[in-house]
């Protein structure tokens, strides 16, 4: 067992689960989506991205790409949220919440691909 692999798997999975937790529930209902969960998802996703730096294998490159996609989507969601709460006169209404959650839904897809890659890697190199 390698500690590096444990930490790597932990962060990849945690990014996916946090993202899922934020995403689940009615798209346009602000009370079903906790902003702290979005914050945690962004931080964990960023850490997972940095952990994937510097891997020269093909699967490592795809890992990094999916993480970057997830980061992009989550940061976009945070920006929409900041716009709705701070700048927009309408405030955080159902429409704004729906776009935040749907953006995080895209990130969830990327995170799921990451998890699939992790599983594929584990299955194909199980003797390592």
């Amino acid at each position: 067992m390698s500690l590096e692999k444990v930490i790597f798997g932990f962060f990849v999975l945690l990014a996916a689960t946090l993202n899922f937790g934020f995403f689940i529930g009615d798209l346009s209902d602000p009370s079903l989506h906790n902003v702290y969960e979005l914050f945690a998802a962004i931080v964990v996703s960023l850490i997972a991205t940095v952990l994937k730096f510097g891997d020269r294998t093909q699967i490592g490159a795809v890992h990094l790409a999916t993480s970057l996609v997830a980061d992009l989507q989550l940061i976009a969601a945070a920006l929409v949220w900041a716009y709705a709460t701070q700048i927009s006169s309408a405030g955080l209404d159902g429409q704004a919440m729906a776009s935040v959650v749907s953006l995080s839904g895209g990130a969830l897809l990327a995170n799921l691909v990451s998890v699939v890659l992790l599983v594929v890697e584990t299955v194909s190199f199980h003797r390592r």
Partner: protein
Amino acid sequence: MGRSTKPARRRPARRDDGRRRIRFTGSGEVSSTIFLILRRMRAPLIVLITIFAVSVLGLSLIPGRDAAGHATRMGFFDAFYFMSYTATTIGYGEIPQPFTGAQRLWVMATIYLTVVGWAYAIGSLLTLLQDRAFRQAMALRRFTRTVSRLREPFLLIVGYGETGRLLGRSLDSLGRRFVVLDASAERVDALDVDQYHADVPGLAADAGNPRTIGLAGLEHPRCEGVLALTDDDEVNLVVTMTAALVRPELPVIARTVSPTIAHRMRAFGSPAVVNPFDRFGDHLRLALRAPASYQLMTWLESGPGAGLPAAGRAPTTGRWVVCGHGRFGHELTEDLRAEGLAVTVIDARPDAGAEPAMIVGDASAPEVMARADLENAVGLVAGTDNDTTNLSLVAAGRKVNPALFIAARQNRPASAPLFAAMEVDWLLVPTEVLAREIYAQLSTPLLWRFLREMPARGDDWAAHLVDRLRQHCGTHLGTVWKVALTGHEAPALGSWLRAGDARLGDLVRSPLDRSRPLAAVPLLLLRGSESMLAPGDDVRLAPADQILFAGRPSARRSLVDTMTNDAVSAYVLRGMSVPSGWLWQRVTGRVPRIG
């Protein structure tokens, strides 16, 4: 001449007989530097993200108070904004309202945390930039990029010692490009100090590694030749092998002092193997037999701007004393004997070789000197591989017999002023011999051909040619260049050449005043495969002839004018003054015939 060297012959690529072309370099070289940075920056970046996340989260959880005094929490947006300017030490103050005590306590902790985080990240990045491996990776990357962007034909010089440097200077003044590969970083750094006209990419890396040779441009389509000039025969062999296997069609010139290695090199393709000691022997024999031929050869081989070497006549009868019987001394002794001279050999090592008249002992010791009977010798060769020993041998020999003809071998370039001060009759510098030899082979094939055929013409002929060169160019050689009387290179000469009465003397005339000859001496005329050495003024030229000239650079430019400009050629060849502008040609009706 030419005992050990063969002209570099081009061999067709062996791709049709099932041999795959090998490639050493891939695209992976380039991106490795970025991966190195990313990998090393993992820990600092994660620390920074964590510190930020904890700070922002804490700030958004700790209750504050709004303007009216009600308890409220800071939003993520405000918290992130606050942390961003605090962590980067900008500090706009407490927003949106003044903080409560609990908030200030937390902010105090986070300020120290974030400063540590930034310091760690920036420090790691700076350390990485100073890192030796990283800098090497960057240098390699820059070198690879420069080489791959070369759009002119270039030579790959492996080994940038004294020979490489001399050769580089000559090649640069010819306008040739080259790339340098050497194991020593100091020598590669010296490239910046040696002021070349063109930019010379250099890499300090193990030259015996085929991958390095590949990176240095062996696989580049514009690479036109490989020179293996390191001090290490083994490395030169590797370079020769690599070049022959990867690019069989490339000409290779390799240096070696060992006949065994030379034999092994020739097993791979047909490299031109140059053995400086061996070449020395050839030069020596030429110098003994025909001093003027030797003088001419040395002058032409020295490259542009070389001064006329002194014409010293070595004694051809009597007994020579050769000190040092290494590979150099051995070669020299054999050549002296072949010329019918008696030779006494002195060497410190008793096992230096089976030699009938060998005296074993330190040559500079008085009793050994006495046994060599220098009083009755005519020549002394100080040929050990130690410059200090050679210098003291010269001094000691002079003392015993001031009339001695003295030849000394100079090993290190740093000793050059000492040998110059000793005023030896004949200075033998292996690196220079090598550089000149390779220069003659590379500069133009016609010069190489001239030098090989020239000794057969005899000493008087050579002395006459040296005189002619001196009259035209002075005591410093101008440039040596080749012209081809083809439609492409000499479009203004077409009709004149085809008329059948094209005398060489009429062509080499000044465009300013055609009664004056140009300061250029034709050395060789090549027609088909037949060559004529030093053609006279009355020689009739034919289309497609190639001529090798030596002369001043201004003469070369004038000749190019005559060959390419119809108005100039009409004046030089026929004495006609033709207007060069289109309008005056129409007005006067005098139009130079094209071709």
